[in-house]
């Protein structure tokens, strides 16, 4: 057992997950990486150890396997100081419109799973009286848009869950951070047309998550421009908004 702080990253093999793990490890945190394919996380674990001389543990975790969540949390060698959920699934809006199974997977991956697992950690943290919970949601959850409302609605649910959890947990010494990255150049967005000035690289998100945890920020728009963009989008009257195709 070390006396160092520790962070657990759910969705550790994603680009943002790797970036967050590096940011925290650089700060001296020991790291737990959780993902579906533990073997695929080995290289990232070696990377963190080599770079920052920290302890790294790997944990099998499937965000759709909610029945295993209790066991997952109980099986961790230590209850981390910080838990970050980066899991999510963009999916394909068009498919989701006709394929209920695909729509369900998007909803469960972005809302049900992340909310339930972070809720479980919140209870443990509240019992301990400390801890930080980070949920990576999305600007897409700020308003349902024609082009991605299945994903967006699930992220909206997740954002609402985090908001409520924050209000409750803050009285018990537990802080909850909601992160809305905007466009990030990652595996998930590869091939999408991203708007340059509104797009950031994954390491920027990793650093923003670390800063939010250290500064106890509530809601983070990684690029400040997004706060403005979404403010405008949210303010549009529905009569106007429904005519927009984006």
């Amino acid at each position: 057992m070390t006396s160092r702080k520790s962070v657990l990253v759910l969705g550790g093999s994603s680009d943002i997950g790797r970036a967050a793990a590096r940011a925290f490890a650089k700060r001296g945190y020991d790291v737990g990486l959780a993902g579906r394919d533990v073997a695929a996380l080995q290289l990232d674990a070696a990377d963190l150890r080599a770079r920052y001389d920290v302890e790294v543990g790997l944990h099998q975790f499937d965000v759709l396997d909610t029945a295993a969540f209790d066991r997952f949390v109980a099986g961790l060698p230590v209850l981390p100081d910080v838990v970050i959920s980066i899991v999510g699934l963009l999916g394909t809006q068009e498919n989701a419109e006709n394929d209920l199974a695909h729509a369900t997977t998007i909803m469960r991956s972005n809302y049900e799973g992340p909310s339930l697992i972070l809720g479980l950690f919140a209870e443990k943290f509240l019992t301990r009286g400390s801890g930080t919970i980070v949920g990576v949601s999305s600007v897409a959850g700020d308003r349902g848009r024609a082009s991605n409302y299945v994903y967006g609605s699930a992220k909206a649910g997740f954002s609402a869950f985090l908001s409520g959890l924050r209000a409750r947990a803050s009285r018990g010494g537990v802080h909850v951070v909601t992160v809305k990255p905007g466009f990030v150049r990652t595996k998930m967005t590869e091939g999408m047309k991203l708007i340059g000035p509104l797009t950031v690289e994954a390491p920027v998100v990793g650093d923003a998550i670390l800063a939010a945890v250290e500064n106890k920020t509530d809601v983070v728009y990684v690029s400040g421009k997004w706060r403005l963009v979404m403010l405008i989008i949210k303010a549009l009257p529905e009569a106007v908004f429904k005519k927009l195709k984006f």
Partner: protein
Amino acid sequence: MTLVSGWGRFPVVDSDVLRPRSFAAVGDAVSAGTVARGSGRAYGDAAIGAVRTVAMTGFDRVRSFDPATGRVRLEAGVLLSDLIDTFGPRGFLPFVVPGTRFVSVGGAIAADVHGKNHHCEGGFGRYVDSLLLRTGQGDVIEASREQNSDAFFATVGGMGLTGIILEATMRLRRVETGWIRERVISASDLDAAMRALEASNDATYSVAWIDCVARGRDLGRSLIYLGEHAGRDELAEGVDAFPVGRSSGLSVPVDLPSMALNRTSVRAFNELYYRMGARRAGGSHVVSLYPYFFPLDSIGDWNRIYGKRGFLQHQCVIPEANARAVLGDILDRVARRGDASFLAVLKKLGQGDGILSFPLPGYTLALDFPVKGDILNFLDEIDRLVVAAGGRLYLAKDARQSRATFAAGYPALQRFNAIRKSLDPAGNIRSKLSQRLLDEV
């Protein structure tokens, strides 16, 4: 297909860009006319596949690090900026860094990049112990000075033409701090500049910035920047041993109109720059490694300053014996033309390590020119001087030299071609640069 260009943004050509996520996928990506691309900091067409370009920057993991020896094993897409930020605070830096830290390890090996210490410490490849190479015929081989040594020496400086570099093991330098003790010498003309570089042969780092607008009596007037790693005891109280590498926040957001750089603006800039530098000359002071090694990195997208049509960097090396006369001739022609940039850099080089490595004992001069007018003809004339003097051009900067210039400058080409052929009989690995300069037609 995607439009791709190098840092000079000339030429801009179509290539199919793939971004594999595993080494197996890298192998699958290789087909006829493929080359790897790192950070895209080669200026011309070196990192553009003849048909297909394999982007490697996703491979950014460190595999292992031994703090006892400073030996690090890493994936080829790791950037030097990342290495510096990660291992600098732990007391280790790359032995060799070029003028930008935003290059990948794979790219640095492929170009066998040199730094301000080449005259005494050699190039990037000298500190590479071994590398993992995916050859054009599909073998994945570990190459070092002892094992597959032909492949090793052809890959160091081989511009990616031996295959795709997947991983490398390299040695890092142990440093006490991330600060450099800098000394500036002002030289009133080319003779003085070359004498000053010669006299500073034992300085770890040395480089001269030349005012290439100055003519006549002032031809070749320079500021020479010498540097040594600063010890902890040289830092003021309370200063962190490792500085923070921050971008200035400045960047060039749009392509400037091509007239932004003209004779008057460059002359004014150079005059100011020279005078400010000359005022600091003489004493020494401690500066952060970032501005010392990477002065331009603090301005994002500085290549856009040359406008939409892009720019050419002409970097030659001239063997020591002929250097003074030829460099004088080149600088005189450039000064009379009057459209060269502020960025003229003069530096002493030692022997290169790879078969196609650029350096040879002598002086290297780098000049930037906007792409316009008769610049291509002008550079062909300069090339004739370079070839006649037994010199050559740096492939990492090149976008336009002729086959004849290239063949004259690189006499080991036959040997390189033979090794390349043995690693890739079908000739799958081909870049726009190799099509232009090496491939059988």
